[in-house]
């Protein structure tokens, strides 16, 4: 079942999107958001996101699609400019978390001796509330792309480790792995040829969830006032600056919030249909959360 997608080239993925209207829509949305965020300097007039005292707190209109904030800046312009960093945080966290977690998971699942220690460490990391840990790291080490991503990755690792480890534990009992051991195949080859491929499908799904949850976490960090330095355009920061004027100008939070929600929802839905397709066993129970 799962071999169809993981082995087969791009045509299979295209076929998958064609059959799955909702996934295709999500993928298209994400693509559009990415393109727009990268093209922001050419799309958004730099003037719009400058401080413009006379334009303060304008409601959404033809002039300003999402209205303006307390400093007269165009919220739509800020949202588009902010997409880049938010998406980057999500992408980097998903890639780094997936990669590091996979290595630890493979090792701890296959070499049983160190399993106990590593899993206790993972339990400990899971016991520390994600957001608090991230807030603490970022505010203590200073907010930057590196610290934010590092803090979020640290939070996500245990779930990836648990996932990969469980696949390794069940796969290593498969007769074909036993057969390979019986043929004296070297351990790294066994891991690479016979065990890692089984992790790929659940990992793809899990990394999409991490991607979604990292974007949310960045927004929460920004909202709590410990995200990227003030003035850096990210979705979290735009919304954080709207807090003070929310009751008078709700669009300052709602508009970027909806953009973020649409993005995260697209990623989550894409992850869900991938999961249904790739790995029906995987449930949200192992999913990252913020």
């Amino acid at each position, binding site marked *: 079942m799962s071999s169809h997608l993981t082995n087969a080239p791009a045509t299979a993925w295209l076929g998958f999107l064609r059959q799955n209207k909702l996934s295709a829509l999500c993928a298209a949305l994400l693509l559009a958001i990415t393109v727009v965020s990268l093209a922001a300097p050419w799309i958004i007039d730099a003037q719009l996101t400058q401080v413009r005292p006379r334009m303060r707190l304008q409601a959404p209109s033809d002039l300003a699609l999402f209205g303006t904030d307390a400093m007269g800046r165009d919220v739509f312009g800020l949202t588009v400019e902010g997409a880049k960093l938010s998406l980057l945080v999500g992408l980097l966290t998903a890639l780094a978390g997936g990669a590091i977690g996979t290595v630890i998971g493979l090792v701890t699942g296959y070499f049983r001796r160190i399993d106990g220690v590593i899993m206790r460490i993972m339990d400990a990391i899971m*016991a*520390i509330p*994600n957001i608090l840990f991230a807030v*603490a790291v970022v505010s203590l080490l200073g907010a930057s792309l590196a610290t934010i991503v590092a803090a979020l990755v640290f939070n996500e690792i245990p779930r990836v480790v648990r996932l990969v480890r469980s696949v390794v534990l069940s796969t290593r009992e498969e007769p074909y792995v036993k057969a390979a051991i019986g043929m004296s195949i070297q351990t790294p080859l066994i891991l690479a040829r016979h065990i890692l491929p089984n992790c790929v499908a659940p990992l793809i799904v899990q990394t999409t969830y991490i991607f979604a949850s990292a974007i949310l976490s960045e927004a929460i960090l920004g909202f709590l006032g410990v995200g990227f330095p003030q003035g850096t355009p990210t979705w979290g920061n735009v919304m954080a600056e709207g807090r003070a004027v929310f009751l008078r100008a709700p669009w300052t*939070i709602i508009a970027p919030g909806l953009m973020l*929600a649409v993005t*995260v*929802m697209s990623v*989550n839905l894409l992850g869900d249909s991938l999961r249904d397709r790739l790995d029906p066993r995987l449930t949200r129970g192992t999913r990252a*959360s913020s």
Partner: protein
Amino acid sequence: MLRLVALRILSSVPVMFIVAVIVFGLLRLSPGDPAVILAGDSATPEAIAALRQQLGLDQPLPIQFVTWLAGVATGDFGQSILSRMPVLALIFDRLEATLVLAVSAIIITVLIAVPLGAIAAWRHNSWIDRAVMALSVAGFSVPAFVIGYLLMLFFSVKWELLPVQGYVSPFADPGGAVRHLILPSVTLALVFMALIARVTRSSLLEVLNQDFVRTARAKGNSQRRVLWRHALPNAAVPIITVIGIGIAMLISGVVVTESVFNIPGIGRLTIDAILARDYPVVQGLMLFFALIYVGVNLLIDIAYIIVDPRIRY
């Protein structure tokens, strides 16, 4: 049984120890000298040195760690640098609001999410199933603070049905407490509900495919009776597990929700302490939250034994 529980408690000691190492290490390895920050810009080097000695910051790290851990083990989490209050007293001062909020969120979740998930599984692929799944994805995707502000905008500002912000103790004014609690606890519960509804649905779907469900049907059980009498008790273990994992989510949610609704709980305390670099308070709170997480999951492990006779340690 008692011995079993005792052993299970004992096994969480190493986990808590590692938590302590992480929490301690994180705060001590960060750049910037807390004594400098605390003493303020105009402090003399002598004043800073004195403060450092007073806080024990001049000792080598391992010694600091052991001293701190020994204190924690005896219930002494240290003193707040800012308010000079014992950390534990600070926490207990603010605990009520957070507990009331969290418990009402959990109650809302279990009462709504489990039946919703069960109905979705029972009517697999129907419009109800799709609606529940769509709501659950939405619950995962919209940040809690956006939802909180939206609820506030409509229920408090536009329709003036509920108070905007703040906290009223249920022990002082039960009616007012409920009115103040509705919006924050719904905000807090939403992500949790999304999670529980999904897991209820998926684990029920899995159970409904098992052989014993067919046996139950062959005995003459109606579909409805099979769902409630046979399937749900068997799906209980994953649901309970996720409630345990969800506690971490709830704690993070508490921080955000308290911020939005201006509730003086330990979530707010944490953010304030982190921003003020009040080390002992931050350490104490992180340990405290981890302890709650580990404790809840301990209770859940014990619940397994009751729910599933196959699980015996």
